[in-house]
């Protein structure tokens, strides 16, 4: 081999070795502090995946997080409840959450809040799987979901630093502040009222359905049926009128096929009041209070009915 090739190979090797060392050291430090977090999103995520053993689990995105007050459900059903909902925690992330939860224990009830548009191709869900990257290494059960993020995700995950991409601030905050998650039970209320009270009409009908997401929904429903978990798909209220011609039959069909429930409150006029909303898609604390009471009552009735 010529001298220039040997020189290039040697330098390339040294450079890659330096990257490897830096990546390992920095990655280990980040991992240590990430899992030591006791505040914020990172803490809630780790608690949801590793610790909660609540009877009623709420799955979903920001709408789940801000719409269901676990304390009201606990008081109404006399069962423990935890809200695992998080901003941008869309359907595929929820599927990973579900897999991780049922590996540890079997919650009797799962309330799964679904956003009307999220089953379509090109909507949210894949990039947002990044919140699960730190858990890829230790949780084999979620790997098949996480790698849906991109074609080269497995390769990228060779890096120790990559899973903590863009999470540095959350890690720092999680290590300098603390919160009592047993008090909030995951619920983060929103305050304030809607400014623009015009009701918008959605036009999502006609988009192509995302097969990965449909498969994930079916998998959750089928597994819940096997494990005797009461699964309720819920579309919580929004201050808009989305077009749901495509999504309702799908959710109904999955629910019927797997002995689950589908409760739709999106167009429920009972909640279509500006004072209940922080913005078009999110209920405020007052709205969440009313909505959770409705859900709790319906769950209670369901239990009384089943008991009779």
């Amino acid at each position, binding site marked *: 081999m*010529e001298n*220039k*090739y040997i*020189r*290039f190979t040697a*330098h390339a090797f*040294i*450079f890659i070795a*330096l*990257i490897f060392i*830096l*990546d390992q050291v*920095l990655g280990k430090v980040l991992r240590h502090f990430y899992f030591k977090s006791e505040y914020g999103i990172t803490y809630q995520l780790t608690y949801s995946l590793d610790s909660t053993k609540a009877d009623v689990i709420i799955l979903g995105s920001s709408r789940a997080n801000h719409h269901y007050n676990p304390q009201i459900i606990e008081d109404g059903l006399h069962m423990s409840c935890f809200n695992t909902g998080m901003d941008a925690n869309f359907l595929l992330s929820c599927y990973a959450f579900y897999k991780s939860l049922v590996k540890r224990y079997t919650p009797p009830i799962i309330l799964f809040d679904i956003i009307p548009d999220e089953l379509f191709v090109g909507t949210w869900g894949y*990039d947002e799987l*990044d919140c699960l990257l730190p858990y890829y290494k230790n949780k084999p059960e979620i790997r098949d979901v996480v790698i849906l993020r*991109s*074609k*080269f995700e497995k*390769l*990228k995950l060779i*890096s120790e*630093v*990559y899973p*903590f*991409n*863009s999470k*540095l*601030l*959350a890690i720092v905050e999680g290590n300098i502040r603390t919160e009592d998650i047993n008090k909030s039970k995951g619920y983060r209320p929103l305050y304030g009222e809607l400014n623009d009270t015009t009701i918008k009409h959605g036009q999502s009908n006609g988009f192509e359905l995302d097969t990965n997401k449909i498969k994930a929904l079916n998998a959750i429903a089928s597994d819940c049926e096997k494990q005797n978990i009461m699964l309720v798909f819920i579309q919580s209220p929004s201050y808009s009128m989305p077009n749901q011609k495509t999504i309702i039959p799908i959710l109904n069909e999955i629910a019927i096929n797997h002995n689950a429930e589908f409760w739709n409150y999106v167009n429920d006029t009972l909640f279509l009041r500006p004072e209940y909303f922080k913005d078009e898609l999110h209920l405020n604390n007052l709205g969440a209070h009313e909505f959770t009471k409705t859900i709790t009552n319906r769950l209670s009735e369901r239990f009384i009915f089943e008991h009779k």
Partner: protein
Amino acid sequence: MFFNSLSYLFFLLAVAIVVYIIPGKYQWIWLLICSIFFYYTLLPTYLILFFVLIILNYYLGLAIENSDIKRNFIFILSICFNIIILAFFKYFGFFQSLVIEIKGRSVYDPLLKIILPVGLSFFIFTILSYLIEVKRGTINAERHIGIFAGYLLFFPKIMQGPIEKPGKIIPQFREKKCFNYELVVEGLKLMLWGYFKKLVVADRLAIYVDAVYNNYEQHSGASLLLATIFYSFQIYADFSGYTDIAVGSAKVLGFNLTNNFNRPYFADSIKEFWNRWHITLSVWLRDYLFLPIAVFFTGKIKNTKYFGLPIEKWIFMLATIITFSICGLWHGEGLNFLIWGLLFGIYLTIANWSLSLQKNIRKKLDISKKSKLYRVYGIIITFLLVSFTWIFFRADTTRDALNIIESILDLEGPLFIDRRTMVFSLVGLVLLYYLEAKIEFSQSGYLPFKTKHWLVEHLAYAALTMIILLIGVFDGGQFIYFQF
């Protein structure tokens, strides 16, 4: 396959390995095949258009060179032909929407929708450059159609330039590419620096800019002002990041392309800014538009004063305004792009007309043009003037741009805070400008981390890789100039 994807890195690695293994006489064939494949992964439908343009312009170039009588006619015909092709794809949508508006049809017919083939603007400008140089006799028309196609389709520059003159690149396709350690390493360093600019700075800033500009009605003047300043840095980091990756990729393959950016926000005048920003386009506009227009009018108009100003000042104004209007229209069909170009024309005209006034003021205030304070003042003023033009560039329409300016002047309302984006953006910007300032004031080329010890340099680039991994945006958007 885009520059900011892992697929591209694997592709480049494969191209580079093969190019240094195969004999020199086959290297251009391999590079041409790879360039065709690269474009095929982007927009396969339009490859045929590029092939047609290559074949036609190959023969037009030969015809310009060989014909004596109809030389000018063929030249003008070939220039018009290429401009019509570009205008058709660039402005079809604009005229179509006008027709739809006039006819009152509310439904847009997707069958009639024609999208601009990626890189066509750069491709056509490269062709025009070739034809003009052949006409001027500075180069001979290329006899080898394969090499001609390779020059036009060369994948590192097909999407967003640099707009290379034929005299620089075509001979490089004829040379045998031997593995050059220094060139390859320089290319790899430049690529890494480009990825830092794109992933850490541009795509992070884009999150804030898009959030504010895409819903500007909902945001305060303070947020719009910050977003405008962020956009100035975003577009620089985005486009110069792209260029670094393009030029770096070419170096890895043994080619030298022109560096399109020379730290433009360190320019202390608009004229200097255009000497440092999108250099190959500036040179193109200067050589093929500004100077010919200026020369044409100089020969036509009597050398006298009009409204107290010498004729050369008026000619400068005319040539500048025309050149920058075309520059604006080259970027897009909207009136906002025309205004963007016109603003630069106006800035340059005012600067040119007020040269003696500026000199007098400096004399009265006893300020040297070379003083550091004056330079800093010039840099800040230039940055603000350029940032103002970016409002028209970034806004969807002129009306939006004017509304945004009105809000900025109001400066009322709370500042939109996206803590994570702002903190990471500032980290990236500070690092970028610290390193660029070091390069600028030491005049040490265009790469950061020039140290005497190779291990320290390796460590610095490894740390840069860690920063990309830690705070880079990996699901960010496409390069801004991709749309042009």
